[in-house]
């Protein structure tokens, strides 16, 4: 087993990670630039953060985006978990092929097509566009991702546990709630987080399905970015990068601790036996 990096591998890792991080690092560094000129360093300053935080349009957009992400991620997780149970457990039923097609297709559908088709639906049924249309659109494509995440966990789950609960007189619903759900809980949480991030990040589908008064943060960012690079956008981006980084690192630490505890439990159990 190789214990150390060799030169070639170290070089490719360094270049690869530099390529991934340097662009973001530049944005972060230049968000603290005093100068309005974005590529000329004019001293350290945090004034752009103050300007962003006092910009009501950004704050309002951020608030709408968070609300949409929260509601759509919750809807997507419930629907995605149900679909995963259907795909893994329900056996055959009429229209199963169509169902699995409908779960798979949104994953590979170009965003412009998803956005266009949902907009045309909302126009056809006369639904006013705004908060709810964006939420429905996000829930629909996120539920497919959520379903994939939960399915893989559900497929590796030992079914005999559930059968045992049923033998001991549990109803199917309470067996699911008391046995299956705790086991697949990490996957359900990952599915929610993934759906939440997908919704936060979406520009194309939101633009198609939004209406007056429901401008999301990516839409606001996009219209500013089109006008060029500015220190305000650098500051706003840095805040978003910071929040996401903290979230992902926290999630992975929790995950690692859970794994370690599971290993300890396992060791204790084998030692006892």
């Amino acid at each position, binding site marked *: 087993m190789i214990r150390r990096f060799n030169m070639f591998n170290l070089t490719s890792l360094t270049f690869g990670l530099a390529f991934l991080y340097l662009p973001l690092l*530049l944005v972060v560094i230049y968000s603290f630039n005093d100068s309005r000129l974005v*590529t000329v360093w004019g001293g350290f300053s945090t004034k752009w953060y103050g300007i962003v935080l006092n910009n009501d349009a950004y704050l309002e957009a951020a608030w709408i985006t968070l609300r949409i992400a929260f509601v759509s991620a919750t809807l997507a997780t419930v629907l995605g978990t149900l679909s995963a149970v259907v795909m893994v457990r329900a056996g055959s039923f009429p229209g199963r092929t169509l*169902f699995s097609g409908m779960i798979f297709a949104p994953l590979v559908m170009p965003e*412009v097509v998803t956005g266009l088709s949902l907009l045309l639906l909302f126009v056809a049924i006369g639904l006013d566009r705004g908060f709810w249309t964006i939420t429905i659109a996000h829930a629909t494509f996120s539920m497919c991702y959520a379903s994939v995440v939960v399915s893989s966990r559900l497929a590796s789950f030992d079914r005999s546990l559930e059968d045992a609960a049923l033998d001991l007189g549990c109803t199917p619903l309470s067996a699911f709630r008391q046995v299956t759900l705790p086991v697949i809980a990490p996957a359900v949480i990952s599915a929610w987080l993934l759906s939440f991030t997908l919704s936060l990040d979406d520009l194309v589908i939101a633009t198609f399905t939004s209406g007056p008064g429901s401008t999301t943060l990516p839409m606001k960012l*996009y219209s500013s970015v089109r006008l060029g690079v500015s220190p305000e956008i650098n500051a706003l981006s840095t805040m978003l990068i910071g929040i996401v980084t903290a979230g992902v690192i926290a999630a992975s630490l929790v995950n690692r601790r859970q794994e370690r505890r599971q290993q300890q439990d396992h060791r204790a159990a084998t030692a006892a036996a």
Partner: protein
Amino acid sequence: MRTSRKFLILTPYLWLGLFFLVPFLIVIKIALSDSVTASPPYAPTFSLDEGLAGLRASFAQLDFENFLWLAEDGIYLKAYLNSVKVAAIATLLTLMIGYPVAYAMAKAPRDWRKTLLLLVILPFWTSFLIRIYAWIGILKNEGFLNLALMKLGIIDQPLAIMHTELAVYVGIVYSYLPFMILPLYASLERIDGRLLEAAEDLGCGALAAFRQITLPLSLPGVVAGCFLVFIPAIGEFVIPDLLGGSGTLMIGKTLWLEFFSNRDWGVAAAVAIVLLTILIVPIVLFQRHQQKHQEELG
């Protein structure tokens, strides 16, 4: 069938039917309709006001005019071909950059791997728009890249990279790199190290061992990674719009402009249908590949 089971199946089924299948059928219908100056800007609209005869008359109005228009105006064909070309070249570039990184990750000491994996995934969680925005600051004429190269005396005129196809390649490679690295890493990490030791014992050089053992065994990862980059890159809108220039024709951008600028819903819907038809081949191949690969593993 028990009621709870029925309910379980019907809830996600109806949701997807209403918000995925029905919208898709509406796109087909509007692609076959004519554009009019009205709200909604297409005709005919189906309604049961005039009874079944009216409905039948509406159906008779549908035709392939929008598709003929796509075929006649060379710009759409050019946009389709260019999207496929850009996506293919960008996929190849992503593979060339992603492979050495994934290889190094798989060869890294075991307790390093999780951290490296996290480091590769982390940028993928930050907003897509911000990642593209970061490159505008680097690539534009007075951007970081040109400043650095001029300071070093390598060039004395700024390179015009921004608003060219080259900038679009950079954007796609950068945004989709994790999609390439993850499946590559998964297949490289699974390779049994004893195979390489055996090859070495039998007098095989490192390069030959790579070519004859590592590369063939990592092929499933290569194929999966390429599909994961190629399929979304074809319909990409944000990257060609922000980094590419007016000369960079890509079909996702064409659809967007047709809808938001020209307000021609019929043509936009027809563009969407043709885009999906182009995507069917790679998508079906991808699904087959994944299925075969799953069976081999399990």
